[in-house]
């Protein structure tokens, strides 16, 4: 049976993202930024959050980091979900991803909410790897939390 389990973990789309690393390379002009560390393996990830002028919509994220196939692919997939996404819609996606990651293989994940990241459902069966998949999402959550509240009176005299 060897190989089958592994291939369901390292699916094509995951391998591809881990090599292409969408959004890799930090850009300036970030609204907020988050640095995350996976203490068991020493992996690090920095995520810059770029938002539009009114601050309620994500322009994009840029990121830099090193890590395993799972962490790099997860971050790349997350990047693809975020361009043009209203900040208010981040939370349900984070919740859906977290739920999938905690499901020990029981929850498939909704592609409308999670895009390519549904391919990471299989990671939830490998408890030791869940942290790898979560790294970028935790960084995003932290960066969003640092944004000024949406009703803050920014730039309006």
């Amino acid at each position, binding site marked *: *049976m*060897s*190989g089958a*389990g*592994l291939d369901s*973990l*390292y699916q094509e789309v995951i*391998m591809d993202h881990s*090599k292409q690393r969408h959004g890799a390379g930090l850009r300036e002009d970030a609204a907020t930024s988050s640095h995350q560390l996976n203490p*068991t*393996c*020493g*992996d*690090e990830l920095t995520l810059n959050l770029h938002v539009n002028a009114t601050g309620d919509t994500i322009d994009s994220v840029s990121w830099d980091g*090193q*890590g*395993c*196939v*799972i962490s790099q692919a997860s971050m790349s997939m997350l990047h693809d979900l975020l361009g043009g996404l209203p900040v208010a819609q981040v939370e349900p996606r984070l919740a859906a991803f977290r739920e999938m990651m905690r499901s020990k293989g029981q929850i498939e994940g909704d592609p409308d909410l999670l895009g390519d990241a549904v391919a990471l459902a299989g990671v939830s069966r*490998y408890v030791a*790897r869940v942290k*790898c998949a979560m790294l970028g999402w935790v960084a995003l959550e932290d960066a969003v939390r640092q944004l000024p509240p949406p009703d803050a009176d920014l730039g309006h005299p």
Partner: protein
Amino acid sequence: MALDTECIRADFPTLRRHVSDRPLVYLDSAATSLKPLAVLDAERDFYENRNSAVHRGAHTLAAEATELFESARDHIARFIGAEPNEVVWVPGATGALNLLAYSFSNASAGMGGDEAHRFRLGPGDEIVVTEQEHHANLIPWQELAGRTGASLRYIPVDDDGRLQMDEATALIGERVKVLAFTHVSNVLGSVTPVAELVALARAVGALVVLDACQSAPHLPLDVKALDVDFAVLSGHKMLGPLGIGVLYGRADLLNAMPPFLTGGSMITSVTMESAEFLPSPARFEAGTQPVAQAISLAAAAHYLDGLGMARVHERDAELGQMLVRGLTEIPGIRVLGPAAGEDRVGLASFAVDGVHPHDVGQFLDDLGIAVRVGHHCAQPLHRRLGLPASTRASTYVYTTDDEVQAFIDGVSEVRGYFRV
């Protein structure tokens, strides 16, 4: 006569396990070794037949338990070349190193009277470690330095992870009060030149603390011959149970050192204001002791004695060389530590070009092969070697040549699988 590996394997029930539908290949003994039946039986026998606290109570079971507990101490003392009152039970190497650091700290705060002066540290004093230490032999000293105002310095390693002995000579001067270093690196598998470092420490009157965690399982250990002041080890890495380890200290030092943990069973007399402490080892063994674990650790030492530590060492070194030779022949693999042909124990850490250690470990697990991935609690060393993490394979008395070969074959497929 060489070790009879097949015969040994029959004693280790965990080897009957399958992982990913394949027989388990356990190459993570440096994290914790498997346990032979003799050790499991000793632990079970204690709870089934003698369950009681030691040094308390006059009943038969307590007397038997106390006798077994103390003869376990005698046994471990012989195993490491010490006297029984120089063997203190601790939870493990981490516990032992913290015991030392906090006892020194207590001495520095004025506890222990005049005789504790040797352990006092303050501003201007130095503690020296090496750049290859496990965090357990680094952070307690950082914290001790923080509490006392002493400074912490370290002997660096070179690009290949070799200790820079010329730097050690320059570093170890009159201000140094404590020199703490590992006997065998848990990442590199290399053996530290103990005698040279001890000579440097002796010349300036510094106390020597040896982390014998990775040497005790693999080499004949003789703390008196090594002439160190303190040595620490974890039982679970040498076939013993979890939760027990040993602090060795020279009797004159242990009897002059203020205790760390205080409470029951470590006193001569107590008033509402103060207490007088027993001599070593009781002085450092406050509270109800891990009796079953101590007895089982002695059973582990007995098992190793049966094999003969010289033969264990010989076999282990052979496996270490097989690992290095095999890994070195695979393109894109960087082996950390000593090259093939140089001294190392049965342990090899390596980096796979283009593949993260977590993915290497996952790939091998799918073949039923258990290895360790990460920084192995040695972040500064990994940083020095330019790696966030590595993969480590470590062998022990039950490891076969075929298992090492299966591992090497597995590693040689990793880069292909991940399309590097």
